[in-house]
């Protein structure tokens, strides 16, 4: 006999990402604590095989809708390195501008729409529309500004069009430089209340020393696009040796590989960059960092959000500086280049291997390509910042849980979610992406 069973179970909060925190405490002692990554592999490296090096940036930008520009730039850098192409100073400077805009856009998203609701005591940014309407409007205004400037610079922010191997297909005209400058200067006004908001947020007290990894250089520039790989434990190596840093390994509970360098785990991202390159930040950024007490080496991962705030100031000020320099020095429009798939052999191609190492919002991103003498990709490897942070998050959780076992289960759940969110993991919609499962607690 057939019967109908009423259930009414909601799945959406379990959907917005692919991670589960598993906590197993027996007799007041933590037996197991892990972050399961259950999303399916996406096989981008496989998709790249056999494709032209000149379309790799368009394919790999699809890895992420938030870090699309970062993937584009890491891909282009790896491609140019593989075929031995040296971009011009103007191209490099425009790429730095693009990276700043993406960092700013992504950090604003994280600070305002993902972290602030936790710290303002609401479940998502939607209730903030009623309780903190000005905050939501400011966040959207700042995000729109970044998107609008990216539209002018590379056609669009999500999956940019004009940034290619060899340079840019289209270079901003003088009136477009004016428009970009005007937009960015307009959100300088919004930065003051953003700093106020950041300073007012109460981050949980927690300390765990770890190794911080990011780009380093010997100049005064805060390295985002170029540099060696360095760590707070004193590692320094050329980007081509990135595998000696990442040392990827497989764990059974995660479809994403884990990494480790000098210690059991390491952290990448804004906090790692600030810890490594604090002195190279824009003076305004450093001033705010000092005011909110963020200084190297900060070992509280929750303060990654504060480090992002500091980077917002740096990226905005540096973007304005770059645009002013372009306005004063002018742009060499003869450098605009249309390559397509290089059917006309505009760019000389040779067989080789190349690496791109770029600081994107969530940390250092690696792309490596091996190409044949026709510019076809033979092998590819992409190592994403969130993957590099997973192991470190687990070690943080293992230290955090025993320290908060006296709290109620829902408070522990929130703290664990906040910890993972502090890393700004690029698992889609991380606002409420986690299932926290307790076993025998």
């Amino acid at each position, binding site marked *: 006999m057939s019967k109908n069973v*009423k259930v009414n*179970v909601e799945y959406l909060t379990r959907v917005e990402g692919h991670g589960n925190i598993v906590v197993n405490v027996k007799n007041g002692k933590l037996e197991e604590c892990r972050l399961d990554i*259950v999303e399916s592999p996406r096989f981008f490296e496989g998709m790249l095989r056999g494709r032209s090096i000149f379309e790799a940036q368009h394919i790999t930008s699809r890895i992420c809708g938030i870090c699309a520009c970062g993937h584009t730039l890491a891909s282009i850098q790896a491609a140019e390195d593989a075929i031995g192409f040296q971009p011009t100073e103007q191209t490099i400077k425009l790429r730095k501008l693009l990276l700043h805009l993406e960092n700013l856009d992504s950090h604003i998203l994280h600070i305002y729409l993902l972290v602030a609701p936790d710290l303002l005591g609401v479940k998502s940014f939607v209730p903030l529309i009623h309780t903190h309407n000005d905050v939501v409007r400011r966040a959207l205004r700042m995000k729109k500004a970044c998107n609008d400037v990216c539209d002018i610079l590379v056609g669009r922010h999500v999956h940019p069009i004009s940034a290619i191997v060899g340079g840019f297909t289209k270079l901003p005209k003088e009136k477009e430089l004016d428009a970009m400058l005007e937009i960015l200067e307009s959100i300088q006004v919004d930065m003051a209340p953003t700093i106020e908001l950041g300073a007012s947020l109460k981050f949980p007290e927690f300390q765990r020393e770890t190794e911080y990894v990011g780009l380093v250089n010997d100049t005064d520039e805060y390295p985002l696009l170029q540099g060696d790989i360095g760590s707070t434990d004193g590692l320094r190596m050329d980007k081509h040796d990135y595998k000696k840093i990442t040392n990827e390994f497989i764990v059974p509970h995660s479809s994403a590989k884990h990494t480790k360098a000098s210690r059991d785990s390491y952290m990448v991202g804004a906090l790692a960059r600030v810890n490594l390159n604090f002195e190279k930040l824009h003076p305004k950024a450093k001033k705010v960092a000092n005011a909110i007490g963020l200084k190297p080496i900060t070992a509280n991962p929750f303060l990654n959000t504060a480090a992002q705030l500091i980077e917002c100031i740096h990226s905005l000020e540096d973007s304005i500086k770059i645009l002013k320099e372009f306005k004063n020095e002018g742009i060499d429009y003869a450098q605009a280049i249309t390559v397509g798939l290089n059917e006309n052999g505009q760019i000389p191609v040779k067989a080789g291997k190349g690496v791109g190492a770029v600081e994107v919002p969530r940390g250092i991103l690696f792309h490596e390509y091996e190409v044949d003498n026709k510019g076809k990709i033979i092998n590819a490897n992409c190592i994403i910042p969130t993957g590099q942070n997973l192991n470190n998050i687990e070690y943080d959780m293992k230290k955090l849980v025993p320290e908060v076992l006296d709290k109620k289960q829902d408070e522990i759940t929130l703290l664990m979610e906040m910890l993972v969110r502090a890393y700004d993991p690029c698992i889609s919609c991380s606002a409420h992406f986690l299932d926290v499962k307790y076993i025998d607690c």
Partner: protein
Amino acid sequence: MHEMHVIKNLFQDLLKLADENNTRKITNVYLKMGLFTEINPEILTYFFKEQGKGTPLESAKLHFADSDMRELKLVSFDCE
């Protein structure tokens, strides 16, 4: 990207409920799905069929009802 995870959770619940209700076979599963869920019903149905092989859900049909809310709910199921 999300659909496989949804199906995994959905199956976990359905198989547990099927066991609790002493059923051999689930014939229909009724979901309510709203806007902006980032879930594709076609892909969800594909994973539902694949995951169902060799389980009490093997020949079950998935039914979707629209919703104005941003939600994805398992409303009920028919079983024998």
